[in-house]
């Protein structure tokens, strides 16, 4: 399982979105790493990539709204990190389309996404939870 209980922030709406994000990324990685031919994997990967492009933006927006609602002091820096990831997903997606579904590009994206997501939720998002708890 990609999701670990210690990633929970204690904010039900954000935790539910994180779990959904992890579930989708896990399913994406399983298809990406399966032994089926690349041609067979492409439709499912493309479908997940399209979902991710939309869902990541929605989730980041909701998370930023929550940060604003609690006056989180790291809001601007956190927003910059979200924007960096959104730009990266869009850039990879564009290059992937242009390359006619190049596998190496998607493997590189999968590896980076795995580390980025875990660090973002296990480390950076936890700072929001710590601040909210301290604030009461």
């Amino acid at each position, binding site marked *: *399982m*990609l999701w*670990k209980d*210690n990633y929970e922030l204690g904010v039900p709406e954000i935790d539910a979105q994180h779990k959904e994000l992890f579930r989708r990324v*896990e399913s994406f*990685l*399983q298809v*990406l*790493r399966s032994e089926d031919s690349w041609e067979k994997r492409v439709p499912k990967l493309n479908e997940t990539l399209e979902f991710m492009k939309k869902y990541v933006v929605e989730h980041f927006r909701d998370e930023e709204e929550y940060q604003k609602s609690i006056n989180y002091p790291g809001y601007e820096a956190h927003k910059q990190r979200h924007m960096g990831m959104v730009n990266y997903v869009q850039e990879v997606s564009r290059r992937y389309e242009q390359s006619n579904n190049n596998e*190496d590009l998607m*493997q*590189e*994206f*999968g*590896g*980076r996404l*795995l*580390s*980025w997501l*875990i*660090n973002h939720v*296990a*480390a950076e998002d*936890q700072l929001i939870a710590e601040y909210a708890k301290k604030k009461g």
Partner: protein
Amino acid sequence: MVHKLYKEFVDATQKVFNLMLNISDISEHPAEDFKCEDEVDIAVGVVGDLQGKVIYRFPVSTSLNMVNIMSGMEFDAVDIFVASAISEIANIISGNVMMALSGKNIVCDILPPEQCKLDGDDGEYEIATSCCIHTTIGKICLEIRLNRAA
């Protein structure tokens, strides 16, 4: 300065291993402890008040263990996916160090990580130090090669 930087990198590695991989048993040792013939080397360039690079030397077994823990899947060889996941970890550790340094009025930025071939001595560096970090899933070697901006 050398000691301050060295400590920031060790602390950041410890923090990232703890939070991302749930590994807290980490200790630092002299670089001579690091002996590895089969490794993934990732260079992260540094620009700003300090200029140069930091090279992260991950043995293949350490790399695979890290990705196996994060993904919950079984990886048995370093491929594009594994190298990319490991590169991002080097990027995250370096980013944390730059953040810590900015609080001490040392302002630097990092360049995207690149897989590299370790070169012995690629120039003169004012700050040149290395260390070996032991963890329960393997060792890592950090090579810090930096100059203060003129």
